[in-house]
């Protein structure tokens, strides 16, 4: 569906942006990261008039700190519905990648030829074997063919593994993608779909009157018939403004990245992957500390030490950057998708796996929001009602 092309948001004048703020939208998406962008793009794809409200250059952005796996294995222990949801996303990713390519010309370098989780030593191999068993025994979960492999079996696919690798689990559905390019593709797609992107406009208040939502930003008020809260951990603060609940338990993760190298790693691992550009990303820690400016080199040391024990050749590569990011993490680790009973038309979406689930967000969640109601058979399990007001332990498999 075509629409008048929006004038340039980024380069536009303040007056122009201010006048846009007076106009009406079918949906306002709060949050312009991967999750909000996927939903907004999906809504634009359905011909909706969409505004995306985002923060500025420096804010906690998981979208530019993530590890970019499209990952299935070990997800969903304790919530079979999450396994099913993840599998659906994995299957739909190819379609998302090709639609983005067609629309924007950008190849997001999706690779889904299976992924490994490698173990070092016998103890880790034993623990992983246990986990795989528990996953298989979980009733109601879809089977995603995760299997344990011996070191010699792993070596057939990953010839450069070191002698300390005791084996690992393999899932043929796992993959990875260039997540920064995916982010750029969504935002490039916004233009095509006539979606208005408003950076530097964090939402401080939301109210509903006269049948529409009013969102307060530093540059004025924006009105929309529906809203989707996709502001990551900030959803915890925004959700209660419209009768929703999004209990979050963020953690910090560190990632180390090397210089560009000739391709050597044909499959992604849970903690090591080679990007299409050639850099090697090594992750990732899980810390309670929530300052994303500070780095603990001792934690990077554990990550890189494990990486070089898995692939001894890595030891000579140069580390060019490292960073810490704050994970968007619902309190029990599973996604939250919910709709407001007190404020019909208000939705909340937050999850840790904004990359893996991007296809679901673009296709399914966007479709449901456009229709005006979430479908219980697809996402009923992810309602925040499961918290019953108290946080459950995080055992999402991450």
């Amino acid at each position, binding site marked *: 569906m075509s629409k008048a092309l929006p004038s340039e948001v980024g380069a536009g004048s303040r007056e122009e942006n201010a006048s846009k703020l007076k106009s009406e939208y079918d949906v306002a998406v709060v949050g312009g990261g991967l999750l909000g962008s996927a939903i907004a793009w999906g809504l634009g794809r359905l011909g909706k008039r969409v505004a995306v409200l985002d923060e500025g250059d420096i804010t906690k952005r998981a979208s530019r700190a993530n590890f970019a796996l499209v990952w299935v294995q070990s997800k969903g222990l304790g919530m079979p519905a999450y396994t099913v949801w993840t599998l659906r996303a994995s299957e739909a990713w190819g379609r998302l990648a090709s639609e983005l390519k067609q629309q924007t010309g950008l190849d997001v370098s999706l690779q889904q030829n299976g992924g490994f989780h490698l173990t070092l030593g016998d103890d880790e191999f034993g623990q992983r074997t246990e986990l795989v068993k528990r996953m298989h025994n979980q009733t109601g979960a879809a089977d995603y063919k995760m299997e344990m492999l011996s070191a010699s079996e792993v070596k057939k696919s990953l010839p450069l593994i070191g002698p300390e690798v005791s084996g690992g689990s393999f899932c043929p559905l796992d993959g990875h993608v260039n997540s920064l390019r995916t982010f750029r593709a969504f935002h490039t797609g916004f233009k095509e779909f006539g979606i208005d992107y408003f950076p530097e406009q964090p939402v401080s208040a939301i109210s509903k009157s006269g049948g529409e939502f009013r969102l307060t930003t530093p540059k004025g008020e924006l009105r929309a018939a529906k809203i989707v809260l996709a502001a990551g951990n900030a959803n915890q603060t925004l959700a209660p403004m419209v009768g929703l609940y999004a209990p979050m338990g963020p953690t910090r993760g560190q990632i180390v990245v090397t210089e560009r*190298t000739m391709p050597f790693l044909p499959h992604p691992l849970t903690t090591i992957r080679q990007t299409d550009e050639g850099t090697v990303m090594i992750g990732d820690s899980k810390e309670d500390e929530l300052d994303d400016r500070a780095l603990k080199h001792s934690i990077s040391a554990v990550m890189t030490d494990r990486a070089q024990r898995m692939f001894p050749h890595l030891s000579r590569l*140069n580390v060019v950057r490292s960073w810490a990011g704050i994970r968007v993490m619902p309190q029990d680790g599973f996604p939250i998708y919910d709709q407001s009973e007190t404020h019909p038309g208000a939705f909340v979406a937050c999850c840790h796996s904004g990359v893996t689930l991007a296809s679901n967000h673009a296709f399914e969640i966007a479709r449901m929001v456009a229709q005006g109601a979430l479908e219980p058979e697809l996402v009923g399990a992810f309602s925040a009602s499961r918290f019953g007001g108290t946080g459950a332990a995080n055992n999402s498999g991450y």
Partner: protein
Amino acid sequence: MFKRSEQDKRPQLQIFVDGVAVAARQGDTVSAALLASGRDARRSTAVSGAPRLPYCMMGVCFDCLVTIDGVGNRQGCLVPVAEGMQIEIQKGKREIGK
């Protein structure tokens, strides 16, 4: 592109560039020795394969990247030459294990 001053009385030493013996002076950096050698010392970038030579010679631009004694992506402008040093001009991305 560059020539040596006649007053340069530093001792000579020999390095090898892609296997070919090249004269250098004690105190030269690898990059200076390469530029003084008159050889084609252009590397090609890891991104597009575009040819480059050292740009800043003070350790900030990373256009002097070179393989030294089997170790890739070293900043040639910060490493002094040593007798018998093996230099390889890098083409494209570094190979793992190098």
